[in-house]
């Protein structure tokens, strides 16, 4: 995951846009928390720079 973030950052895309979470299939609260975190990150970072030019 560290490497994937580095590869993205080399190109000019924030590494924070990608993340890996480990959770069990029955861990609904964990899943919801992860989704909320990623949503928050996306809001802070703004639109995907690739889509802006889309």
């Amino acid at each position, binding site marked *: 995951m560290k490497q994937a973030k580095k*590869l*993205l950052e*080399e*190109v*000019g*895309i924030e590494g924070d846009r990608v993340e890996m979470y480990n959770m069990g299939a029955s861990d609904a609260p964990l899943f919801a928390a992860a989704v909320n975190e990623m949503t928050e990150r996306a809001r802070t970072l703004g639109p995907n*720079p*690739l889509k802006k*030019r889309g």
Partner: protein
Amino acid sequence: MIVGERKPFDEIKEMVQDHKKIMILGCGTCVAVCMAGGEKEVELLAAQMRLAAKLDGKNVEVMEDTVTRQCDREYIEPILEKARECDAVISMACGVGVQLLSDLIEEIPVYPALNTRFIGTNEVEGVWLERCMMCGDCVLGKTGGICPIAMCAKGLVNGPCGGTNKGKCEVSNEKDCAWTLIYRRLEKQGKLDNIREIFPPKKYGLHVNPIRQVNEAYLHAEMEEHHG
């Protein structure tokens, strides 16, 4: 194996900035094993190139391929036609592969994606160590199979020097003292007397670029076949 390291992305991007159709060609031998220029690394670089082009609002077509060995004509020839359809090729091979490919498609520029560093071994997963400097005058038979040219920071053929420090080198505590390693190995082989031998200065004249090697027996047999 030949150990290479991928260049920084910005350097690669800058080299090919004027090209619109690019082929990224990997090499499936040494640089694939050292995780720098094999099929997987081709995919990663291609993905980065496509993302970067899109970010820059450029229309760049990136093709991917990997051959078994870029230092052999027979392996490159099958992809030449495809390479000629491109404006440029980024080679993920060592410097030898880059040059042979460029010799074969002279009109298309070939850019190196790697820095070719040394020939060495895989120490542990993800770590490589230089083991041979290709001096052309091998002393391994006398030094217990450990090369003092490559492994000693000073390349001393008569060691150890005064900088040996409990098995490490004065240059860095992370480097083993090559001559301590040699001593221990010769001890195991019952050949410690080897270390008393004073080696003459190395024949550095043997390494005059570019070196060409000829197998006379092969050439002779070839000639006989053709001329009876």
